[in-house]
């Protein structure tokens, strides 16, 4: 459904993921950008500096000396009411770790593009999702894109979400597979994005005319401050952040629906479904891997297996309740993770298991660790893993140690 009020019907550009992210930030009229180059994110910084220096984007671009400083700059710029953006990958995100907590704890609507890359040691610049998964407990919303259109759309939506619930948002997309791969992207007009995303109106900012203090020393228990007002203790502030993440599910869906109405690309759910209606076998994947999984489903359907794909779009907050219905008919769930929680299993697998607990879904769950450090994951390998899992439909879970790895070990 194309809204008649739109400026134009379509402006298809051939963009790689990094330029889609940069364009998303530009269309969101970001006001402060602070970044440090790192492979494979660097072209994002190059595009944005070109926009700024060429006068196409009225923003401050700060070429800081490290990612830690990049996020510190975003934090304080956001605190005085600016819409802020940064992008990073891998070691850069890890180096930001302290400030990621700081931003979420201060409840600032910073948006970060994470170009997913493996983390060292050993050195590797190629793709997996260990970097952003390692930051899942920092209090950020995490959105994963399957393709470059979703990168651009998600950055724009991220500001609307972040500025509604005062929780920062990380838009994650696979290094090289998306960041350096060009594909057609429908680029919305500035006017339409302005209609969707009004200027940022901060709920509280640093303003010398009206002094406030932020990020105070906060003890375990509530205490009276210098003005005699009873203030939250540390636990209450943590509770409120958790509440904000939990409640953000509704906002994420509403923003996705609204985006769909305006741009005819709906993001009305926190995950994507592909042929789940009659599926007794469900492949779970996140990011570009989900696109590969749809090809595997084509192959498996031809063999007569009733298979579908559930692709996680939002990892934090995890859409537990929403998943139950989608998985209610599943008898076998095969989860592919491009990350590993050492000593346990893939992170999305743990989440799926946790979501199913107590919901009378008697599906067998198998977990495959794939694609670490840029190891290619072919549709054929996904299909093979599903075929290998088929006996579980009759025999229940395999009597082997979880998870299984698709590698030469």
């Amino acid at each position, binding site marked *: 459904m194309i809204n008649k009020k739109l400026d134009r019907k379509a402006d298809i550009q051939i963009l790689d993921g990094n330029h889609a992210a940069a364009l998303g930030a530009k269309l969101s009229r970001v006001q402060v950008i602070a970044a*440090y180059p790192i492979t494979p994110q660097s072209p994002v910084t190059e595009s944005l500096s070109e926009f700024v220096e060429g006068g196409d984007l009225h923003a401050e671009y700060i070429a800081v000396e490290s990612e830690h400083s990049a996020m510190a700059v975003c934090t304080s710029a956001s605190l005085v009411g600016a819409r802020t953006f940064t992008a990073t990958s891998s*070691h850069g995100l890890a180096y930001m770790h302290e400030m990621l907590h700081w931003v979420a704890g201060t409840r600032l609507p910073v948006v970060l593009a994470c170009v997913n890359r493996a983390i060292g040691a050993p050195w590797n610049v190629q793709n997996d999702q260990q970097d952003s998964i390692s930051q899942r407990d920092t209090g950020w919303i995490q959105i994963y894109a399957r393709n470059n259109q979703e990168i651009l759309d998600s950055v724009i939506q991220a500001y609307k979400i972040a500025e509604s619930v005062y929780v920062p948002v990380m838009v994650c997309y696979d290094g090289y597979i998306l960041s350096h791969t060009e594909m057609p992207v429908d680029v919305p007009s500035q006017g339409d994005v302005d209609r969707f995303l009004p200027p940022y109106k901060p709920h509280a900012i640093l303003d010398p005319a009206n002094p406030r203090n932020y990020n105070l020393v906060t003890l375990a228990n509530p205490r009276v401050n210098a003005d005699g007002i009873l203030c939250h203790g540390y636990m209450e502030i943590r509770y409120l952040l958790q509440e904000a993440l939990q409640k953000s599910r509704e906002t994420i869906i509403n923003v996705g629906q609204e985006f769909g109405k305006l741009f005819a690309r709906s993001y009305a759910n926190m995950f994507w479904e592909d042929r789940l209606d009659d599926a007794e076998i469900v492949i779970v994947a996140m990011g570009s891997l989900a696109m590969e999984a749809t090809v595997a489903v084509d192959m498996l359907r031809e063999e007569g297996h009733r298979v579908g794909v559930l692709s996680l779009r939002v990892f934090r907050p995890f859409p537990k309740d929403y998943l139950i219905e989608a998985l209610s008919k599943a008898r076998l769930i095969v989860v592919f993770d491009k990350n590993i929680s050492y000593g346990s299993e893939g992170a999305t697998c743990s989440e799926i298991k946790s979501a199913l607990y107590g919901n009378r879904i008697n599906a067998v769950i198998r977990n495959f660790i794939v694609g670490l450090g840029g190891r290619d994951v072919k549709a054929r390998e996904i299909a093979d893993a599903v075929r290998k899992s088929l006996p579980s439909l009759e025999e229940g879970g395999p009597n082997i140690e979880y998870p299984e790895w698709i590698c030469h070990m």
Partner: protein
Amino acid sequence: MRKVYTRPRLLKKVPFHYCPGCGHSIIHRLMTELIDEMHLEDRIIGIPPPGCSVFAYHYFDVDMAESAHGRGAAVATGIKRAFPEAIVFTYQGDGDLAAIGTAETIHAANRGERITAIFINNAVYGMTGGQMAPTTLSQQVTTTTPYGRDTGIEGYPIKMSEIVALVKGAVYIERTAVNSPANIRKTKKAIRKGFQAQIDNLGFSLIEILSPCPTNWRMNPLESWQWIDNEMIKEFPLGVIKDITGKTDAD
């Protein structure tokens, strides 16, 4: 016939992956020659950085442990303190030592760590594709300063060697270049003095080497050698910046 020149024994017999005209190949050669000449082979441990020279271990036939972005001087400190007999060097670019690794460098120098930093300055972030580094010259065009570095908002080329020279624990600091046979010879002498300061247990040494990056400078190798002479040296003058080793010339 007397053989006067040969491939350094400690340079592995593999082709360099570096771009034509890149300074790393020259510096790798100088360093492996020196390690051999100074009989450091059994004591030397190198800390290569992230960046193009992340592959230094592929060429140096000596012990090496990679460090994460900017951590070189701290990593070298750990090795040196636990293994003081070792001769420890970091090999770092300007996007590393002069940016994300500034704090580590200054504080290792201030502690007078007996380590030697080999600091390759090419005025850009090389491996990531030529973005502006803290060392980028005023008005220099890079991929993140497409209209030239505007010092009013993007800062000035940072002079790490002069900054580190202010720190008491630093004992030998020299800036050289590898853009002419004469400068290459001076560079070798400087690295020798840096290693000697460490061997003599005197303190922190740093050798800054202006090094061509024809690919990211969008020049041919000859032009990039000239650019060092005509532009870079004006901002980063060559010579000994600090020497409190009390030694005369190593030659």
